[in-house]
């Protein structure tokens, strides 16, 4: 603490001219190169996208509330599922994690800012344009993309509607944004760590973002490539995915999932980092097996490159291919299991309290594990023939992405809100948000397992009568979950406006450099690096 006070006063002396160099109004946000401002922008953007994607999902659930076509036409239904998926993946989860990276990484490694601040501004500000382009296609004559977020050819090429080019360019821009963000994270972590902070002394949060950034750099160009091939197949007469011209529609799926599988780890590894920060803080006990956590994260990342075809078991792969991808996929359960066991061991014989960040983290561990179980079942090729493209898969990836990634984001947001705003959030309101979300999310996604096992295919606007009961419950859960998220908005706005003054370290078990600066964190922190030993 004393060293820190000295740092702060040095800061003030050294950066006096900086402090007033903050523009006012909209210009502050447009021109900002400050990692905290950009982090805030990313987080707000992600939340707006979450509500947008959620609104689309609620229309989907309204249509599926009962059998028959009530609200939307089948083609528009397909547009809704497609854009819902794209927005949640590229607009909500990924930017939210980039927001955390921007806000927290420099403060956790004792850096004054991200290494490439101007690029940082650019990588955020192209995002709203990407989503404006994507969403604008709803208002075009042809309608929005309607071929699913996985955009399998030739449904997305020869048989697509007129808005494919808008979709392709939107994805290009999202990809550029992600790659720039990832480069920034890698460069920052490699170059700006405080003296004494060796790699194996970095908080696990930093490790997970470091590894995720490498995954992004590796696979986003693949996504860029595949959408470009899609573009030329659709508009310039190439035949990458058209058998009549010597191409292969299944090759599309290989390229897409070579991006797509690492992509799902891009959306979960940072969640591991957040939860691994929060559980020790509220168990008041060091994270169990730090180095095994680092190795497990790295192994999951490496394995993610050799399991992509488990999304394609029904495409007619040779037996050897099916066996290879089944075994590799099953292997992922090992490092993932290590992580779960380590979290439980961290809680074991701790001295636990259950503030909202901890509640969301515990829910994360349990519900993510349920998603992991269904993932393991899906890995078994013969049974996957039954599960594939049913609601069992929908249940699986929503458990992993909603009660996994999204819950970790909420956990992190509550954990660091005092640091971001300088105020304590309302614990009562936050618990309401947690319990409403927890109950409704399970009502929403758990029955989907049964629907899938009973044989309901995904992406259908209407269904046979035996699926009616569960769909009704699922829809009710969906509306409740959607509305519960407005409580989060209320908590955040209330917290920004005021509330109990937050001390520098509001959680007595928390560790890390970010808690050594005052709350709210000053506009510039660590202009002089702290010393870590």
């Amino acid at each position: 603490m004393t060293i820190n006070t000295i740092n702060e006063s040095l800061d003030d002396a050294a950066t006096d001219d900086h402090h007033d160099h903050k523009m006012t109004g909209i210009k502050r946000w447009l021109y900002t190169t400050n990692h905290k401002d950009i982090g805030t922008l990313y987080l707000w953007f992600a939340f707006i996208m979450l509500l947008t994607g959620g609104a689309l999902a609620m229309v989907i659930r309204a249509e599926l509330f009962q059998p028959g076509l009530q609200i939307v036409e089948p083609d528009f239904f397909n547009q809704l599922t497609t854009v819902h998926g794209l927005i949640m993946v590229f607009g909500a989860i990924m930017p939210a994690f980039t927001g955390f990276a921007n806000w927290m990484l420099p403060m956790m490694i004792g850096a004054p800012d991200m290494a490439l601040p101007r690029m940082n501004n650019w990588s955020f500000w192209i995002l709203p344009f990407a989503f404006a382009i994507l969403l604008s296609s709803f208002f075009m004559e042809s309608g929005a993309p309607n071929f699913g977020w996985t955009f399998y050819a030739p449904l997305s090429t020869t048989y697509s509607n007129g808005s494919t080019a808008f979709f392709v360019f939107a994805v290009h821009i999202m990809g550029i944004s992600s790659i720039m963000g990832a480069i920034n994270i890698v460069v920052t972590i490699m170059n700006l760590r405080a003296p004494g902070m060796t790699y194996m002394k970095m908080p696990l949060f930093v490790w997970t973002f470091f590894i995720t950034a490498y995954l992004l750099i590796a696979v986003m160009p693949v996504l860029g490539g595949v959408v470009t091939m899609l573009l030329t197949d659709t508009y310039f007469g190439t035949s990458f995915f058209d058998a009549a011209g010597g191409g292969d529609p299944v090759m599309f799926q290989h390229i897409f999932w070579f991006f797509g599988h690492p992509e799902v780890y891009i959306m979960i590894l940072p969640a591991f980092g957040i939860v691994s920060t929060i559980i020790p803080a509220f168990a008041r006990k060091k994270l169990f097996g730090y180095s095994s956590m680092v190795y497990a994260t790295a192994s999951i990342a490496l394995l993610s490159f050799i399991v992509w075809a488990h999304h394609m078991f029904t495409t007619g792969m040779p037996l050897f291919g099916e066996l290879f991808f089944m075994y590799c996929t099953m292997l992922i359960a090992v490092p993932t299991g290590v992580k779960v066991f380590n979290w439980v061991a961290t809680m074991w014989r701790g001295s636990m309290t259950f503030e909202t960040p901890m509640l969301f983290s515990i829910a994360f561990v349990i519900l993510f594990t349920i998603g992991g179980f269904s993932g393991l079942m899906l890995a078994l090729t013969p049974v996957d023939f039954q599960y594939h493209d049913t609601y069992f898969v929908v249940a699986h990836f929503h458990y992993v992405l909603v009660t996994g990634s999204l819950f970790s984001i909420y956990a992190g947001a509550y954990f660091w809100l005092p640091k971001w705003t300088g105020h304590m959030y309302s614990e009562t309101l936050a618990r309401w948000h947690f319990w409403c979300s927890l109950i409704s999310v399970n009502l929403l996604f758990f029955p989907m397992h049964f629907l899938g096992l009973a044989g309901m295919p995904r992406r259908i606007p209407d269904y046979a009568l035996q699926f009616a009961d569960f769909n009704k419950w699922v829809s009710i859960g969906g509306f409740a979950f959607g509305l519960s998220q407005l409580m989060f908005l209320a908590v955040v706005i209330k917290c920004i406006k005021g509330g109990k003054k937050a001390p520098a370290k509001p959680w007595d078990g928390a560790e890390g450099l970010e808690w050594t600066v005052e709350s709210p964190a000053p506009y510039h922190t660590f202009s002089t690096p702290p010393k870590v030993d």
Partner: protein
Amino acid sequence: MNRGNQTWLMGALLFLCCSYANLASADTQLNLTKGVTAVSREVYDLHMLSLYICIAIGVIVFSAMFWSMIFHRKSKGAKAADFHESTKVEILWTATPIIILIAMAVPATSTLINMENNDNSDVTIQITGSQWKWHYKYFDEDIEYYSVLSTPRKEFENQNGSFDGNGAAKGKNYLLEVDKPLVIPANKKVRFLITSDDVIHSWWVPAFAVKQDANPGFINEAWTNVDVPGTYRGQCAELCGKDHGFMPIVVDVKTPEDYDLWLKEQHVLTAQAADAEKASLGLSMSKDELMKLGEITYVAHCSACHQPTGLGLPPTFPALKGSVVATQGAIAEHLSLVLNGKGMMPPFGKQLSLKEIAAVVTYERNAWGNDTGDLVQSSDVKAASEE
């Protein structure tokens, strides 16, 4: 967690249990089907094995968590221990899962090898998906036909006045019924060669544990050997455009004797249809007859895209009402479009009879105020198809 929250949690759990119990009382299916083939039963066993393993691991892990949450809380005066590493434990919980995984991989591998053995089949059927119907072709039998959803549109458009989810106005097999099911013999190895005419579809019958993608330009293999005669239903399992939810699969499994009878009957019907085609060439149908048959054919085969109103769903599916093709263009061009297709429009030359095509083109040129007065006869269609 304070007392209030505990009450909350109990209430929530109770609510969930009640709602599931309530659901289970209806004839709602909760688990995977066992199916009616040796393979599907193996798949079911594998599913149950993996489910039980997951439940067992879940019970152990979650019990430890809840134990810890109940007893290791600060409010109960728990003091944090300071262990945070143990190589022994780490090795234990890396090795144990590997052993469990091997126990799952062994039966999975043998089932998979069995599923992928397509040799020595008794019957071979080519299955072709297209937007949004299935086509079945029996090798060595000269039998082929399309299989299309037979649930009336008014049922899913809720035009029967009923709006309740219990389907008072909807049939028992709502969305899972077709005009002509696939017919296969029981206790024979039936091999399917699966492909597509347009986008990717996926042929799935849960009771057989067969799900295989239909890829345009490529042929996939699958097989089944059904023990129990009966009717089995499935659906397309790969998003294939607008009516993906409306292309069911129905398989009628007959005893080998009944299957042979069915084959004979089909040969007779095929011969009769050929005769009818020939006869229709000399026939001159009246406008009323043409319009009547035309409307029936149009509703069954064209209205999904061009809509019963003829207004289509532009820009993807163009309107026919007042369109250039159906009003100003030459009849020959109109016929060629229907017979051979173009772009997203599928060819109907093989799917419909000469009479039906004549009728539907007449209908399209005279319905919805198109009023060209043009009449098309089977002989015109025949001439157009030979060009």
